[in-house]
C-alpha cells in the first residue's frame, strides 16, 4: 500500500519512507543472515550484563 504524503498531517510529521534499497535490505537473505548473527551477539551482551 502506498501512503500519500499530505503536508501538515500526522503522517507527514512522522515521514520516514524507506527507499527501494532500504526495503530490499529488509528481506535480502544474505544481509539478514549477517543481521541475525549480529542480533544474537547483541542479545547475549544484554543478557550477560544482567548477570
Amino acid at each position, binding site marked *: *500500500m502506498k501512503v500519500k504524503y499530505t503536508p501538515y498531517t500526522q503522517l507527514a510529521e*512522522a515521514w520516514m*519512507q524507506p527507499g527501494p534499497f532500504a526495503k530490499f535490505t529488509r528481506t535480502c537473505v544474505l544481509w539478514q543472515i549477517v543481521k541475525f548473527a549480529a542480533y544474537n551477539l547483541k542479545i547475549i551482551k544484554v543478557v550477560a550484563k544482567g548477570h
Partner: protein
Amino acid sequence: MAKVVVLGSGFAGQTAALNLRKSLGKDHEVVVVTPNKKFGYVPSWVWVGVGRMDVSETQFELAPVYKRMGIGYVNGLARAVHPDDNYVMVDLLEGGEEKVEYDYLINATGPKLNYAATEGLGPDHGHTVSICTPNHAAEAGEEYLKMVERMERGEEVKMLIGTGHGMATCQGAAFEYIHNIAFDLEERGLLDRAKITWLSNEQALGDFGVGGMVIGKGGYTVSGKIFAEASFMEKGFGWITGAHVTKVEEGKAHYITIDSAEDQVEEFDFAMLIPAFAGVPIKYINKDGNDITGELCAPNGMLKVDADYTSAAKGFDNWKKEDWPETYQNQTYGNIYAAGISFAPPHPISKPAAAPDGTPIVASPPRTGMAAGIIGHVVALSVADIINGKADKPVHTASMANFGAACVASMGKSMTKGSAAVIAMFPVVPDYERFEYGRDMDATFGDQGLAGHWLKALLHHLFIYKMKGKFGWWLIPD
C-alpha cells in the same frame, strides 16, 4: 525435608519450578498449583490472533512434564493463603478444594486481566477482542478473519488497536498485533480497505511503559519514538496517544486524553484493546482469621516485596533505581516471594500524567517474559540456597534497574517476507545518574527486518523446549 509451592505455570512459575527441581535434592518437594492443563507460549498468541498460527502450536500438556521432572501438580486456583500457618487453599478444577501446605511459597500468578475497570471492554462481557489468553486469541483470530471477508467483499473496515485503560501496560503486544494485522492485510492486498488506528495510554509512541528509549542509528543518537512513528506512517495507521478509555459500546470507544477531559469517540468494526492489569484475587488470611490482603498487597492486588513503596509519593524526578526490588521476598512473611507480573512495582517507569479532570494516565511498567523468567530464576536460586543451608536469607538478586530486556516484536509472520523489531535495552529502568541517555548505549539498540522474524520464530521453539524441561533446558537463557 522442605516443600516449595509455586502458584502459577507461566514464564515466572515454570522457570521457578524447573530451577528449584534442578537445585534441590529429591528429598525436597516442589509443587506447582495452576488452573492450567497446558503451558501457553504467550508471545505467539499475536499470530493466533491473526489466524496465522493454530493455538495448539503454542501449548503443551503440563502433567507429563511435571511427572518426568518429579514436580508435584495441583490443578486448581489458589483461593487463599494462610501465611501464619503456611498453607494455601486451592479450588480444584475437578471440583472440591485442597489444603496445600508449604515451607516456601512463590506467587507467580501473573495478572488478573482487569476488563471490569473499563465498562464494555473485553471479549466476555464487552465489545472488544483480546489476545491475552489462548482462547481469547483464537477467538480474536476468528473475528479478524470475518473482517478480512468483509474487506474481500469490498467493504471498508475500521480497526482500533491499543490499550483499553489509562493505567494499562503490555503496549508491546498491541504494537505487534497492529503490525501483524497490517502485514497480513498487505499480503492479501486488502490494506487499503482498512482504516487502522492506534489508541494508547503512552504519552508518545514508543514509550512502551519504560519511558521510551534512545538508540544509536547511522551515527546518530535517535529517540525510539521516531522509529515507532515511522513504522506506523509506513502502513498508514493513525494514532491517538495519552488516552484513557472510559467506556466501550458496540462499535464505539469513548476516551479522554492528557489534553482533554471532553468525551471523545473512536468508531470501530474490530477492536483489540489491552486491559489494565491487577493482581489475581487471592486472599491472605492471618492466624486470627482476619483478611490481611490489604497489608500484604498493593491496592491493585499485586504482592508487595522488597521494593521501596514509599518512593511513589516522592514524584518522578526523585525516583531512584534503589526503589526497585531485588530479591522479591515479601517483607512481612519471609518465606513468601512474588515472581513475574505478580509482584507490585514501586511506581511506574514512565512519567505519570493525568487528564485535566485528574484521571491518571500512564503506561504501567511492563514485566516481559524475559523479566518474568529472570525473576522466577533468582527467586528459585535464593530459596534453594536457603533450603540447602548455603544462606539464611535470599542472596540472588535481579532488579529491573540492573538487568536488561531483549524484546523481539513481530511485525509480520513469514520466513521470507516477515519482519520484527528487535529491541534491547540495558537496564529496563533508566538510570540517568549512570548513563547519559538513561541506558547503556552499548547494550541498547533497535532494528527491524526479516532476521527479526527468524529470531522470533527461533525463540518460539527454544522457549517451548526450555519450558518442557527437556535435555539441557538450563543452558537456554531466561
